[in-house]
């Protein structure tokens, strides 16, 4: 990855309307997001020759999206996957552009995540859950059927060993909800959360309350990736990929086998080596936040806060706008919306572009930004961006 440092860029971002009940198909949401991203880049649909998407049997195909934009693409790619798929698809797009097979790739995630297929909401049959995971029969009969429970097993022990408390989870939630108050498009705009309210909220599945869970939304997000050279033809400010680690995994496909390791631990060294920078250089962050604890664990994994001091780091307000590492500044998946991480990608691109200049939403120092993806404890990817 060192070889392609700053050679590729995100040149367009766009989103559809965000709602709890879109009333339209994921295809229409994807088309809406794609059109916005193409306009944002100052391109035309025919300039896009690669279309990629990830989904969990809840979306539309890239071939459909290209078709209804009136384009016959050279490459389409769809994959089954959740968080961190954006990073993986960006890496695949770079590979295809680098080998001369396409010029410009549109990557999207579209879902009726609330009104349609809900994550952990009974979208899969019990037998499919048992057969679908390595060692599935060893977890499903015990009621462990949702990510909140699976990740909670990791969280309980990690928090126990590292002095992390409910209040530390609360700092993640209240910081992100505070960001959402500056984002009129966030679901929780106008609904701030105080620590007092947070601490009074009951667990759904320990150690998580409803505030520690991400939202569910009907929406699509899209980004456009091309070479920095070609980005000169775009009207947008290109956000360059300084380095990335596409997708690392833990040591066992049954990831409950070793609940002391997470994939982000393996991503971090590759990421910083690729980008040629250190964690201290990072000034703004989008950290995958399907659950509050996942943010704490990644702050540790990516060296953004020292192991054992992550609780102090968030208690000191460092995730807030005036902190050392303003994080998920649109509100994140805890309070803005949920597209398996892509909404966090859109926000970090806008921060690095300095699109919010002159408002209280613009982070002061955006020279180097980190964006992380987390499918689960088992799978992760991340990238470092710059202007």
């Amino acid at each position, binding site marked *: 990855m060192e070889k392609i440092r700053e050679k590729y860029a995100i040149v367009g971002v766009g989103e559809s309307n965000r709602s709890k009940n879109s009333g339209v198909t994921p295809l229409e949401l994807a088309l809406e997001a794609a059109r916005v991203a193409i306009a944002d880049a100052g391109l035309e649909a025919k300039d896009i020759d690669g279309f990629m998407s990830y989904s969990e049997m809840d979306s539309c195909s890239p071939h459909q999206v290209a078709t209804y934009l009136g384009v016959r693409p050279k490459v389409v790619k769809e994959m089954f996957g959740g968080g961190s798929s954006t990073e993986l698809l960006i890496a695949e797009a770079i590979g295809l552009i680098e080998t001369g097979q396409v010029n410009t790739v549109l990557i999207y995630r579209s879902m009726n995540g609330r009104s349609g297929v809900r994550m*952990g909401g009974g979208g899969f049959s*019990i*037998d499919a*859950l*048992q*057969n679908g995971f*390595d*060692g*599935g*029969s*060893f*977890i*499903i*009969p*015990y*009621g*462990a*059927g*949702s990510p*909140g*429970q699976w990740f*909670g*097993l*990791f969280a*309980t*022990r990690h928090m*126990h060993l590292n002095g992390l408390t409910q209040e530390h989870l609360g700092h993640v939630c209240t910081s992100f909800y505070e960001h959402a108050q500056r984002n009129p498009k966030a679901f929780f705009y106008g609904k701030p959360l105080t620590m007092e309210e947070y601490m009074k909220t*009951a*667990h*759904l*599945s*320990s*150690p998580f309350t409803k505030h520690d869970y991400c939202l569910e939304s009907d929406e699509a997000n899209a980004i456009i990736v091309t070479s920095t050279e070609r980005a000169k033809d775009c009207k947008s400010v290109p956000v360059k990929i300084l380095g990335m680690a596409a997708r690392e995994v833990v*040591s*066992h496909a*049954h990831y*409950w*086998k070793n*609940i002391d390791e997470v994939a982000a631990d393996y991503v971090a060294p590759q990421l910083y080596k690729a980008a040629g920078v250190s964690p201290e250089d990072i000034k703004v962050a989008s950290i995958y936040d399907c659950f509050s604890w996942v943010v704490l664990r990644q702050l540790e994994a990516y060296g953004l806060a020292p192991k054992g001091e992550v609780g102090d780091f968030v208690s000191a307000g460092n995730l807030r706008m005036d902190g050392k590492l303003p994080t998920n500044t649109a509100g994140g998946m805890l309070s803005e919306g949920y597209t398996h991480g892509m909404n966090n990608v859109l926000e970090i691109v806008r921060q690095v572009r300095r699109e919010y200049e002159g408002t209280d939403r613009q982070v002061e120092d955006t020279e180097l930004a980190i964006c992380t993806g987390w499918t689960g404890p088992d799978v992760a990817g991340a990238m470092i961006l710059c202007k």
Partner: protein
Amino acid sequence: MNEETKVIYEKPIPLKNTYNAPYWDAADRHELNVQKCNTCGIYNHPPGPSCANCGSIEVTWENLGSNITGEVYTYIVSHRPFLPGFQNDLPTVIAVVHLEDYPDIKIIANVLNGNAETVSIGTKVKMVWVEATEERSIPQWVFA
């Protein structure tokens, strides 16, 4: 429904397959059977077609009997049923337990009758088998 109605087991019953059948067959006999690698010596749980530590196909099964004790390594207390059958059994404690005599084996099950006040990391438990049907039994944990 009257008092004599037999309680129907509504929770998911483990599906047997090529790799896990010896484990669940033993569970039906109220015994713990664990896959072991003859090459590197580790216990390979959950079981698979070969060893997850060294890749050897020389895997076999070791019966550890019915007197199984361990300590809670981590756990969660779920207050909502995320799968069918758990709605009458809340809160549900789901625990990863490492076995006292075989610390490299960790087994996930519920701590029956446990709750947020009574279960913590280090809680000592022992294995019992809950008869789900006439043929099938499910290993579970109770306080030791």
